[in-house]
């Protein structure tokens, strides 16, 4: 428990999440009471979808997301209000139109620009890492504004919520307050959605109020309890998410569900007792008790992970290749951790808060620096000034642009003309692996000067083994001059190809997320295979290999596997495979083809 708590308070990004999340929960609870009671709950949901669309467009157009989304979502809120009051389309239909419309536009825009990637996933389900320092400032300002306006106009908001027609008849500007509510809701949703997720943020607005309505008998108490429930649920949810490495938004919603279930039961019991004339202060007491209980129930879960043993230098590597390099060089003198678990999909990897803490506490951090590692950029800032030495593998070698090989299906037709990215699978050339080892060894020696000689010896030994495989590849490539190797899959072997001069044809670029080829590509590759009399079609390990199998069936060839060494299967990991053993398999596979 203490570990988890101290974790919350000792990391800047967690603290930011805590502050912003707390404020957002508070605002949502305040606004939620009015929205739910006015039967406007779905407006919150609709607006979050609009927010998603706006974020997608902002990212595509390279505008600071908040500056773009907030005005758009406020406009949408006003539009919803107007449609609700005057339009021919009534409430629920109007909201459904706007929300699904915005969602569709957002998905279209993203898929046409960056592709359905980790960003989209983050917008939809939230990311605890989304809060940058400037976001915190903005969130604090906005939240304070929401809270202040709510306090100042409390009586007006009550009147407008309870009875619009009475308020209007007695001279209250109902329209203005509705707009105020809508605008505040819009702002709150935009600020909160990147952490909670567009699909989940509206639950923060609805759950606390509905929960409080089960037991509270006055508006003021509903508000008070909603705020309490919202904050407690957020905090417990955050703890749960840290402890179980679960997404924050979903965790908070689940705690809210538990809370609602509990208080519904509690409210039912209270109502029974009400008939027996038992009195109210007990109720408040019991409600408080229930909250404490709810927190208490979760406490045993917080056993917490052991802090890292401090006596050895700690190395954290993202993928399998850098993990193995560090492991070979470190030997027994340092502990090496791999972030990508065996079998995990590398291109949509999102670090958990623990992963980030691990990186922050490490002495050496080795990562690729390409498309799969964009999340690293968001935490590099917090590493600056710390003890962690950072090795970016793409800085160690001569880079190659990701490129379209003969017959390859581009990742995205729009992007084709624009700048191509550098390929990140630098380690697929053994020569590059040797260069990376130099950098890792240097970093380790700096971190642990006492063992510098040991590391250098390990490295020299390892590099001589690498060198042998390097020459073997070179030889194989020479013998295979004029021969084309066909990869019916994505192609992470650009550096292997360039370094040794193999001739490859492949279906997709290295980082392509889709592995369903279009018929034209498959047709082309089949004709190519026939004309080159190819007997082996390669697939990449951990890929389902549908395309390779289709081609192989068509030309009566066999399917063989090449290993990318980015992520490795759990079985391979168990069997103690190494970068070297996998590259030797690749070598044999190429020789046999």
């Amino acid at each position: 428990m203490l570990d988890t708590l101290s974790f919350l308070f000792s990391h800047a990004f967690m603290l930011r999440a805590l502050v912003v999340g707390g404020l957002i929960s508070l605002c949502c609870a305040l606004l939620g009471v009015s929205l739910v009671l006015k039967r406007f709950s779905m407006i919150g949901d609709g607006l979050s979808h609009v927010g998603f669309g706006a974020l997608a467009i902002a990212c595509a157009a390279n505008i600071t997301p908040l500056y773009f989304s907030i005005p758009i979502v406020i406009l949408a809120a006003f539009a919803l209000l107007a449609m609700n009051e005057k339009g021919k389309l009534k409430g629920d239909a109007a909201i459904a139109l706007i929300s699904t419309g915005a969602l569709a536009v957002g998905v279209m825009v993203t898929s046409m620009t960056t592709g359905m990637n980790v960003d989209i996933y983050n917008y939809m389900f939230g990311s605890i890492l989304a809060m940058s320092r400037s976001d915190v400032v903005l969130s604090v300002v906005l939240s304070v504004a929401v809270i202040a306006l709510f306090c100042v106009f409390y009586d007006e908001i009550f009147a407008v919520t309870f009875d619009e027609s009475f308020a209007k008849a007695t001279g209250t500007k109902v329209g203005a307050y509705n707009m105020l509510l809508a605008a505040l809701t819009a702002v709150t949703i935009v600020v909160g959605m990147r952490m909670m997720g567009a699909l989940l943020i509206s639950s923060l607005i609805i759950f606390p109020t509905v929960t409080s309505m089960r037991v509270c008998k006055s508006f003021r108490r509903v508000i008070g309890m909603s705020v309490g429930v919202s904050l407690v649920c957020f905090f417990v949810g955050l703890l749960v998410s840290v402890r179980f490495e679960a997404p924050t938004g979903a965790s908070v919603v689940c705690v809210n569900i538990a809370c609602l279930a509990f208080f519904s039961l509690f409210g039912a019991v209270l109502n029974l007792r009400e008939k027996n004339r038992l009195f109210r202060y007990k109720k408040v007491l019991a409600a408080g008790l229930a909250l404490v209980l709810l927190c208490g129930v979760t406490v045993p879960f917080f056993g917490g992970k052991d802090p890292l043993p401090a006596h050895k230098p700690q190395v954290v590597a993202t993928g399998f290749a850098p993990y193995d390099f560090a492991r070979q060089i470190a030997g027994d003198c340092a502990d090496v951790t791999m972030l990508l678990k065996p079998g995990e999909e590398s291109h949509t990897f999102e670090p958990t808060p623990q992963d980030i803490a691990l990186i922050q506490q490490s002495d050496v951090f080795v990562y690729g620096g390409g498309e799969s590692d964009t999340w690293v950029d968001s935490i590099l800032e917090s590493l600056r000034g710390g003890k962690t030495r950072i090795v970016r593998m793409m800085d160690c070698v001569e880079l190659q642009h990701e490129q379209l090989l003969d017959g390859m299906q581009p990742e995205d037709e729009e992007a084709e003309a624009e700048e191509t990215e550098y390929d990140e699978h630098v380690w697929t050339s053994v020569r590059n692996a040797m260069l990376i080892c130099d950098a890792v060894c240097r970093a380790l020696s700096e971190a642990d000067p006492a063992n510098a000689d040991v590391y250098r010896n390990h490295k020299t030994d390892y590099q001589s083994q690498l060198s042998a495989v390097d020459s073997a590849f070179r030889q194989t490539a020479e013998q295979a001059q004029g021969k084309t190797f066909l990869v019916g899959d994505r192609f992470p072997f650009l550096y292997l190809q360039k370094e040794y001069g193999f001739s490859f044809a492949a279906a997709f670029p290295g980082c392509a997320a889709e592995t369903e080829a279009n018929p034209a590509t498959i047709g082309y590759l089949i004709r190519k295979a026939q004309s080159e009399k190819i007997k082996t079609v390669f697939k990449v390990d951990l890929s389902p290999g549908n395309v390779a199998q289709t081609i192989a069936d068509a030309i009566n060839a066999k399917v063989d596997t090449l290993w990318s060494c980015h992520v490795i299967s759990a079985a391979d990991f168990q069997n103690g495979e190494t970068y070297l053993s996998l590259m030797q398999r690749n070598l044999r596979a190429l020789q046999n083809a």
Partner: protein
Amino acid sequence: MALIDCKQVSLGYENRIVAQDINFQVNRGDLLCIVGENGSGKSTLMKAILGLKDTESGHLHYGDGLTAKQVGYLPQQTTAQRDFPASVFEVVLSGCLSSKKHSIFYNKALRQRATDSLQKLDMLPYRNRCYRELSGGQQQRVLLARALCATTTLLVLDEPVSGLDPLATADFYKLIRRINRDYGITVIMVSHDLQDALSLATHILHMKQSGAFFGTKQDYLQSDIYRAFTGGGDHA
């Protein structure tokens, strides 16, 4: 001078006239019942009186120092209100909103006014009860107390007894009579029940597409429109 003066008013929606040639006055102490068939423009007229809707043509004025902020209004209940988690006092206090000036919270005088309103309607014991747990008749009293907070002059009631059982209805009419006679508050009530209206009202406005009838109760009982409306079977 009359509190409300209505001359040659016509009402409508989106260029469609619902009722025209409406003429009437409401003076201090009157109890005016607005009756008429469904769709005759009763609620539209009421909205116009409250300033929630513009008239298509004609004059509709407040007089005798009356302003929009001094009108108490008892709207029909919405379904959302029936299970609204608010205390009785919170609801009644919200009637004081229009009298609140330059301050964030209700001051002591306004809170006292809310307490007095509850007292007048014998609802003080329910002050801290939850609104949604009251019976329909009690809820209506609470809303009436709120309307009293907003006014000392004119009260506008929109079908105040719809949904109440006969006992609660009789009870509620007693209250309205008391408010009108004892506290000297002018009342305008929209009702679809002619007999109830006749038992209460000093004046009747019978809405029709054109040429609405306005007069004292006595005049109305003699009028053609009353006879036609009740099927002419009243006098042999």
